[in-house]
């Protein structure tokens, strides 16, 4: 039966004219039809009412909650900073005791980075991206809702610890041995709480990358994308390669904290330097992860201010891609004083100087655009101008600090504090506020006050410089970071007092801004639809607000359709473009091809639900309980989270649709269901697995790091993982992989029985692989030395993934049995095969390391 030449099932392709002709677009839509279509569309996209509002998953709601929450965490972290400045205002101050002070600066840094800077990017992007791309929603609304609830739970947990005097206190980069030896739950709260949030960040990155690649409006080729989308693409990619090393580091760190596996303990062969590497491989790209999306906001505002297209579009793309790459070659400049060879320092010093070039290019492109245009000085531009000034100053001290000899002197002093605040305020805080002023009418359909905005700007701008300019001097005078007080007579009193007064001015500025945000605007007259006269798609939004995002999804042929295409808005509004109707009452958006945005699919997107909340709560339990060494509740909670996620997937994804294809408008018929690389789900798996592979690569980097840094790794008399059993495990996983891929092919060719048998056998083989791997590592004692600990860590990683692989195989088997997965509708099988390709690769590497490599090195 296997050898019969099978006939593949026919799958529908897009049919009908594309691109639309002028005549097609000019054809009027009858008034009556328009009203009927609009009503149906409105009904499909209606927000839930009352308390059910909180079950919403639409990007506009989730994006708003996300932004407000991140902003709230920022204000909290700002309050911590005020306390720090209050304590340091005068010498030998006794306001805050040393331990509290440690908690304050640790939480200030951690919260600003993990609870504000990265999440606000995700929040704003979730909010804006569909608008910028003329899409109805992002491709996985429930995923972003899940990410938001994870972020909220994790953030409240981490930040709340400061109220109980239990906050982390080893600095935002948690260096061992200080952080590993630290008693109390502080370090665990940091590790587990923030890992939980990082998972949410990766979810958002997946969502946003797929959004940019697959949900652009028809005709928006890559050379027409709004620059913000380019930045989102680059930053999403960076998150995928930057966060996993930290997750791998957290994994090792928490194994040491909880089970005494000595990854960072030199007495048992460990090395604290590994943490520094893993942390900064994350930590430096992180700086650019928060900088690039903020500068992307500037890239949207500047053309509007200049009232002309951006100059140097390709140059800005170069700048985003170039900065994205180079930022990964800088991490060692945080480690100049750790005793690495001068030549190694030189490589990173060189890369740190090189990154100035793409960073500078985009600023010059903005200036050139402004010079070439007719400037209309709107309020957001004031914030951008301030941002560029401050960021440039921070960049200049950055060039100084990139030089290793200068850094040796300034390392760990207030000079660094000044530098990093100049870059982050100029590169992140001010552009984000500019973005809030600029996009506020888009988000809320109200305007912020011009007068209050100017006051807030000048207070924050002046206060910022009063606070941080003197810190350069304080640092050069030798004041170290993180001291909770200082003696008199060192010449530090006056600059510290000035800094503290400046902090109060910044706080006043934020108070004005906050008031502007929250004051009632009910009496404001209806705003103009396009108040800044911008040219990009998001300003085709509806005023007053409609939930559908876009009345009809346009065909785009230029970078600034609102400026360049006559009659464009009218066509959008009358439903003359794609998907102007929702006859089945389903939420739908358009999926297009990656490079040229040719229509591929009508994607059904999901509706309000509570399952995401349950999944987030249980997943939160799985991370939060271990903080208090409550492992049984943690496991139960983790299992419930898996169950909730499976329920969510089973009930609402990839069910065979009622028809193969549907009318998408303008004579185009598009499929409703595709599988494999055409589908958004496949891309999401691909991208997620890229991040997962990076985390695994970080673990193997750890293995080779120990081997490089230590004369005796693996120790000569060390017990190795059993060679035969490791081989058996490898064989089991290989069989699991081969059978899964074979099942996909069988199913595709309508050999359903064979496919089911393949999946069942695949699960069995994988389970056998897990068992063999456990047997292989059981004789090793992970607490005795770092070598068995690394082997165990690899085994835990591989087994956890294999277990996930089994769940996937059984899920597809069940799908096949219950009619969810058929030869025609096989997206799930494609997606799990992709997971299995990646897993097979990491299983091979792990088995090679545990078996032959460990014995040969």
């Amino acid at each position, binding site marked *: 039966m296997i050898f019969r030449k099978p006939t593949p099932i026919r799958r529908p392709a897009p049919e009908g004219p594309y691109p639309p002709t002028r005549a097609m677009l000019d054809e009027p839509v009858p008034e009556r039809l328009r009203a009927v279509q609009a009503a149906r569309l409105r009904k499909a996209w209606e927000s839930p009412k009352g308390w059910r509002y909180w079950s919403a998953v639409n990007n506009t709601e989730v994006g708003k909650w996300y932004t407000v929450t991140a902003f709230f965490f920022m204000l909290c972290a700002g309050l911590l900073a005020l306390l720090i400045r209050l304590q340091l205002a005068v010498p030998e101050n006794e306001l805050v005791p040393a331990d509290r002070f440690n908690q304050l600066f640790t939480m200030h840094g951690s919260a600003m980075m993990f609870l504000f800077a990265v999440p606000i990017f995700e929040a704003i992007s979730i909010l804006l991206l569909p608008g910028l791309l003329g899409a109805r929603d992002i491709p996985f609304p429930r995923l972003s809702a899940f990410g938001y609830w994870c972020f909220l739970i994790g953030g409240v947990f981490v930040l709340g610890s400061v109220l109980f005097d239990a906050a982390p206190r080893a600095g935002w980069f948690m260096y061992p041995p200080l952080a590993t030896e630290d008693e109390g739950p502080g370090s665990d709260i940091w590790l587990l709480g923030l890992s939980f949030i990082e998972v949410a960040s990766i979810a958002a990155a997946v969502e946003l990358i797929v959004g940019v690649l697959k949900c652009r409006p028809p005709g928006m080729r*890559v050379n027409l994308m709004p620059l913000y989308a380019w930045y989102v693409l680059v930053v999403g990619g960076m998150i995928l390669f930057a966060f996993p090393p930290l997750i791998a580091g957290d994994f090792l760190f928490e194994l040491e904290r909880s089970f005494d596996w000595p990854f960072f303990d030199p007495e048992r062969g460990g090395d604290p330097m590994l943490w520094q590497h893993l942390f900064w491989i994350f930590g430096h790209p992180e700086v650019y992860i928060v900088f690039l999306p903020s500068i992307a906001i500037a890239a949207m505002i500047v053309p509007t201010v200049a009232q002309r297209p951006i100059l140097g579009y390709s140059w800005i793309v170069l700048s985003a891609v*170039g900065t994205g790459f180079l930022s990964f070659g800088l991490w060692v400049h945080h480690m100049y004083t750790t005793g690495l060879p001068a030549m190694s320092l030189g490589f990173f010093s060189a890369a740190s100087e090189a990154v100035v070039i*793409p960073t500078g290019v985009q600023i010059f492109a903005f200036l050139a655009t402004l010079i070439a245009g007719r400037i209309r000085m709107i309020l957001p531009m004031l914030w951008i101008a301030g941002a560029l000034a401050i960021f440039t100053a921070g960049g200049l001290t950055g060039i100084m600090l990139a030089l290793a000899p200068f850094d040796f002197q300034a390392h760990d002093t207030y000079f660094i504090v000044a530098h990093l605040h100049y870059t982050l305020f100029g590169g992140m805080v001010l552009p984000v506020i500019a973005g809030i002023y600029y996009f506020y009418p888009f988000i809320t359909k109200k305007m912020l006050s011009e007068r209050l905005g100017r006051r807030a700007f000048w207070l924050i701008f002046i206060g910022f410089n009063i606070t941080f300019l003197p810190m350069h001097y304080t640092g050069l005078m030798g004041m170290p970071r993180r001291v909770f007080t200082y003696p008199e007579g060192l010449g530090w009193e006056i600059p510290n007092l000035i800094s503290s007064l400046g902090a109060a001015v910044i706080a006043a500025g934020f108070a004005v801004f906050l008031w502007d945000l929250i004051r009632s605007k009910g009496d404001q007259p209806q705003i103009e639809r396009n108040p800044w006269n911008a040219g990009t798609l998001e300003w085709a939004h509806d005023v007053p607000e409609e939930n559908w995002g876009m009345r009809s999804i346009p065909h785009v042929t230029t970078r600034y359709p609102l400026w360049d295409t006559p009659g464009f808005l009218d066509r959008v509004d009358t439903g003359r473009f794609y998907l102007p109707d929702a006859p089945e009452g389903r939420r739908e958006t358009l999926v297009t*091809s990656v490079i040229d945005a040719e229509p591929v699919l009508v994607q059904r997107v999901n509706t309000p639900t509570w399952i995401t909340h349950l999944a987030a709560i249980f997943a939160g339990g799985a991370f939060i309980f271990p903080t208090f060494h409550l492992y049984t509740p943690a496991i139960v909670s983790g299992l419930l989270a898996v169950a909730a996620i499976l329920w969510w997937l089973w009930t609402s994804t990839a069910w065979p649709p009622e028809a193969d294809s549907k009318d998408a408008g303008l004579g185009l018929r598009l499929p409703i269901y595709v599988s494999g690389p055409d589908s958004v789900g496949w891309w999401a798996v691909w991208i997620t697995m890229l991040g997962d592979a990076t985390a695994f690569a970080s673990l193997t980097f750890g293995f080779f790091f120990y081997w490089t840094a230590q004369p005796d790794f693996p120790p000569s008399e060390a017990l190795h993982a059993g060679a035969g059993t490791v081989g058996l495990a490898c064989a089991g996983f290989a069989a699991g992989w081969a059978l899964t891929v074979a099942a996909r092919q069988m199913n595709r060719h309508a050999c359903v029985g064979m496919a089911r048998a393949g999946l069942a056998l695949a699960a069995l083989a994988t389970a056998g692989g897990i068992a063999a791997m456990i047997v292989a590592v059981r004789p090793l004692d992970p607490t005795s030395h770092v070598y068995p600990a690394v082997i165990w860590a690899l085994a835990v990683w591989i087994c956890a993934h294999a277990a996930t692989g089994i769940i996937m195989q059984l899920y597809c088997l069940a799908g096949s049995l219950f009619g969810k997965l058929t030869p025609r509708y096989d997206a799930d099988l494609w997606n799990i095969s992709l997971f299995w390709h990646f897993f097979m690769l990491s299983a091979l590497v792990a088995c090679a390391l545990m078996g032959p490599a460990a014995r040969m090195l």
Partner: protein
Amino acid sequence: MTNQEHEPLPDEERREFSAETGSLWRLTLTPLTWAMHLVLCYATISLACARQLFPVEVARLGLIGASVLALGFICWQGWRAVRQWNVLTTGVLTHPNGKAEDRHRFLGHAATLIAVISAIGTVYTTLPLLLLEGCR
């Protein structure tokens, strides 16, 4: 394609460009070369200095050789990108319009610029190899 949003370019190649699915990846080829070169330099010097697998001078000279190879590859890719951009024959620098040809040349332009920055980065990484010696 029926969309006629702009006048034909001076020497428009009147043919369809395929979707160029691989071209987004091609953009990353030269910076990836830079990255791999950096990692190679860092790892080799660590293996020479920390693990003492081979003399550092050998490592240094070998890495200078690797720099030449990396730069050669980046220049080759850069040249291909210039050809794709086609600026030398058309004189057209920017491609803000909505045709397949615009997208094709835009990707060439972007790849050219990215190759330039990758080459600069690789030269920078090579400088310590030329200026410093030993494991201090």
